[in-house]
């Protein structure tokens, strides 16, 4: 279905907090710390794998200015997960506030809250720890080797849901699905492929590292101000880990400096809360940049084996995907990320035979977690490079091969029902899909027709064109819930209260647009307050590309209920049936144009006239589908054959996200995801020493692109209308981070004829591949 016209939806209205943010107003967690706030610091493990034989905190406790010292000996031992997911979490309970064992370099040993940062650091130095160093497990292969040291040998690690969990084998999660017969399908193709791809550790690097402040309010409740994507999960999990009832905690998310999945983790709320409870004073913990790299969360590195076969006519006879992810020392998001490797990638291409196996293993390396793309990034890489290989083998244009095979509106995939998030998935047929158009418009924009094979290219600098197609989802069906409430004020303005979490994405703005559209008013009349567990309704939070689609529907429902109330008051006042009235320009208007009332008149009557009541309502929403956004990426690169340097010249992302509620913000999501993807493909990686210590926990040694490095990025929004979404919307946030890995790899191949399967595609790797080709 084609795009539709709206009044507020579909307009690039200004992001509501943009001016205040550019004026540098105090809006982030640390900006609210009172002058007498205690500063928390954490003692991190220097060993990848060790048992704490003894720990003496007495000297630290006695230091003047030290208010609280925590370690495993003085806090309750409560198994939980830091994964900010719904209850019961599909991640294992393998984490403790503090443990008598450390499982990676950067694991928690103790924490101090003191009057100043200097005193806190001095106190950490005064803590004496004796370790029994154990053999570390530092790779996927080492983790799976028979007789390997067991990382989670504690008796109390478990998982709440009925899924395979084998910590004694260092296996945090396992999942499998099949359709048809892989071997039979592979035999039916004219060309067979069997390649392994391996993606690296990467960090989200939000510009604001993790930060949390906690204090006790006048009723002795713990108020946690935190940079989180999941305020309600943070409240539940912090309460669990600290050992207090949920009602004792209020979580507030102010503005936050980016998340990208790193803050879908209840990472430090438990610790800061416990320190504040013990010290009975406000406590602030701000991660340093090094801590953000080492002791925050990362993208699950993945080894992905892709087996496929294709017929000469381009029909794909089988796809096998075998994924092993490294979840690091704890199993946060281990199962769901590996599930997503299959569920957000395999349905894209139709084939009768699919086999998927996913395993996630523990290692003594930094902990993986949620990261924009969430498994699809890792798995789409292999599948999309393989598509390029298939196209070459059968002599078909890679864009043509996608056009021939991709899923379309009205079609289903057995993968949807087979693979969910920790349980079986939900069967669905695709609603809106404009991937054909994305491919055609993207190809045109990059100049795809001028593409020549690498064999025709000479000279030191060689350019190449690559492409890929992508899908993601929009929220987790039958699991995620978002709610919103709306009330009307005297002047005809509205308070819109939501649990939803704006990470900088602009969700507060686009959700206000949805409400304004339904209420026949404008964006200035919507007063938005979100993400406060005391004051706003529940929302699972900002993850799984859910907010626009899920919370947007809740907002739309709540607004339609309020609309009805306004119409009823208007009907009584105007003496006309509600059916003959409409809401327009903040007025109740008779459809025949005979009469009108301002919203203010309606509100004043409802609040002060007769039969007074508060015009307002609340609505919740769950979804029964997770409609995928679709995208086609086209990339031009230039490879320097002398140095191996790869430069992205132009990057085109054509995206079908349904109705773009705010096109400029949807473009911003796309461009940010694309740039993050480019950096991951070309520069970002962790380097470890032989004992598992991270060697480059710094933005000086872990390189992000700056304004100087940016290529030309062209976003093409291709509208479609998803009937199950608010005003036709689907998601946009995650999908576009997935294209750079395969798209750049394919473009490099088109430039110089080498296939790169181990990102980042550094000069060394390109030169090595070129040398091997000769």
């Amino acid at each position, binding site marked *: 279905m084609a795009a539709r016209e709206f009044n507020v939806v579909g307009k*690039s209205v*200004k*992001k509501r*907090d*943009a*001016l*205040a*943010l*550019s*004026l*540098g*107003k*105090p*809006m*982030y967690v*640390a*900006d609210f710390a009172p*002058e007498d706030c205690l500063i928390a610091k954490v003692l991190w493990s220097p060993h990848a794998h060790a048992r704490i034989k003894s720990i003496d905190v007495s000297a630290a406790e006695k230091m003047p200015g030290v208010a609280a010292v925590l370690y495993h000996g003085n806090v309750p031992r409560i198994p939980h997960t830091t994964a900010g997911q719904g209850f019961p979490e599909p991640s294992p309970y393998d984490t403790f506030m503090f443990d008598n064992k450390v499982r990676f370099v950067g694991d928690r040993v103790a924490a101090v809250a003191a009057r100043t940062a200097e005193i806190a650091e001095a106190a950490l130095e005064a803590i004496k720890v004796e370790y029994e160093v154990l053999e570390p497990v530092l790779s996927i292969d080492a983790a799976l080797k028979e007789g390997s040291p067991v990382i989670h040998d504690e008796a109390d690690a478990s998982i709440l849901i009925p899924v395979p969990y084998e910590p004694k084998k260092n296996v945090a999660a396992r999942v499998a699905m099949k359709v048809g017969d892989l071997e039979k399908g592979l035999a039916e193709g004219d060309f067979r492929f069997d390649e392994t791809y391996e993606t690296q550790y990467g960090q*989200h*690097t*939000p*510009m*604001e*590292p993790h930060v949390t402040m906690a204090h006790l309010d006048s009723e002795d409740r713990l108020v946690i101000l935190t940079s989180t994507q999941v305020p309600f999960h943070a409240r539940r999990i912090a309460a669990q880990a600290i050992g207090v009832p949920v009602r004792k905690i209020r979580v507030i998310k102010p*503005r*936050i*400096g*980016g998340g*990208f999945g790193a803050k879908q983790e209840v990472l430090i709320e438990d610790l800061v809360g416990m320190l504040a409870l013990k010290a009975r004073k406000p406590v602030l913990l*701000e991660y*340093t*940049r090094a801590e953000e790299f080492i002791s925050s969360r990362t993208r699950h590195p993945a080894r992905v084996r892709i087996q496929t076969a294709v017929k000469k006519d381009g029909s794909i006879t089988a796809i096998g995907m075998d994924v092993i992810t490294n979840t690091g020392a704890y199993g946060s998001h281990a199962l769901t990320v590996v599930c997503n490797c299959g569920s957000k990638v395999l349905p894209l291409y139709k084939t009768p035979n699919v086999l998927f196996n996913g395993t996630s293993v523990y290692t003594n390396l930094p902990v993986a977690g949620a990261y924009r793309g969430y498994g699809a990034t890792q798995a789409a890489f292999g599948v999309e490079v393989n598509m390029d290989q298939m196209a070459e083998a059968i002599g078909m244009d890679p864009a043509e091969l996608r056009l021939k095979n991709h899923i379309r509106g009205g079609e289903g995939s057995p993968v949807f029902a087979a693979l969910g998030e920790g349980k079986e998935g939900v069967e669905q047929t695709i609603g809106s899909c404009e991937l054909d158009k994305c491919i055609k418009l993207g190809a045109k924009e990059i100049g795809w027709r001028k593409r020549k094979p690498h064999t025709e290219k000479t000279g030191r600098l060689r350019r190449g064109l690559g492409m890929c197609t992508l899908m993601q989802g929009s929220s987790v069906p039958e699991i995620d819930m978002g709610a919103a409430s709306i009330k009307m004020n005297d002047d005809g303005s509205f308070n819109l209260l939501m649990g939803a979490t704006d*990470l*900088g*994405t*602009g969700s507060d703005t686009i959700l206000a647009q949805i409400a304004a559209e339904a209420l026949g008013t404008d964006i200035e009349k919507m007063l938005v307050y979100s993400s406060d567990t005391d004051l706003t309704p529940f929302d699972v939070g900002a993850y799984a590309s859910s907010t626009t689609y899920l919370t947007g529907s809740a907002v739309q429902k709540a607004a339609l209920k309020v609309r009805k109330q306004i119409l009823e008051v208007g009907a009584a006042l105007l003496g006309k049936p509600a059916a003959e009235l409409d809401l327009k320009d903040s007025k109740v208007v008779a459809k025949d144009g005979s009469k009108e009332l301002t919203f203010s008149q309606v509100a004043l009557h409802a609040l002060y006239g007769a039969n007074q009541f508060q015009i307002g309502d609340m609505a919740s929403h769950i979804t029964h589908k997770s409609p995928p956004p679709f995208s086609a990426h086209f990339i031009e690169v230039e490879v320097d054959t002398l140095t191996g340097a790869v430069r992205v010249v132009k990057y085109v992302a054509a995206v079908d996200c349904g109705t773009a509620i705010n096109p*400029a*913000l949807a*473009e*911003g999501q796309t*461009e*940010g*995801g*694309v*740039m*993050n993807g480019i950096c991951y493909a070309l520069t970002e990686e962790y380097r470890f020493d032989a004992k598992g210590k991270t060697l480059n926990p*710094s*933005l*000086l040694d872990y390189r*992000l692109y*700056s*304004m*100087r490095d*940016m290529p*030309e*990025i062209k*976003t093409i929004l291709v509208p479609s209308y998803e009937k199950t979404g608010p005003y036709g919307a689907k998601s946009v946030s995650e999908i576009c981070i997935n294209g750079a890995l395969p798209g750049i790899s394919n473009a490099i191949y088109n430039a110089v004829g080498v296939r790169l399967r181990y990102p980042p595609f550094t000069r060394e790797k390109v030169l090595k591949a070129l040398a091997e080709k000769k």
Partner: protein
Amino acid sequence: MAETRKISFTLNGEKREFSVLPDEHLLHLLRRSGCKGVKFGCGEGSCGTCTVIIDGRAEYSCILYAFQADGRDVRTIEGVGDFDKPHPFQEALVESSGVQCGYCTPGMVLSAKALLDQDPRPTEAKAREYMDGVLCRCTGYEKIWTAFRKVSGGGSDGR
């Protein structure tokens, strides 16, 4: 405990005195003096969220000691624009949707202001090099660059 010393510098147009520790960083001093728009991002001069303008140049306040500001002219985001009269680049950022999480935005604004004050129509290469000091993970820079072009003569030498 190290001894504090007195320094004075002009902060957002106002001459002020400060007691500082010898190893206190300018970022810390500014934040405790009420300039919360100066952000901590890395503490090693690599991300630019702590950018301030000192004597007309954009500098990282996280790697400068507070005493290094003694006698100089320091401008933070608090001294650039307000709700009624934002700086043209602040306005352009809002118009172009160049603000997402906003954590890098003050640094971007101050870098752009320092450059535009000395060269209102910089070449693209010069502008990109100057703006290179502030990282953004949200926007991919595209819309920040669009905003910059709006206030710097439209990118006279190309895109």
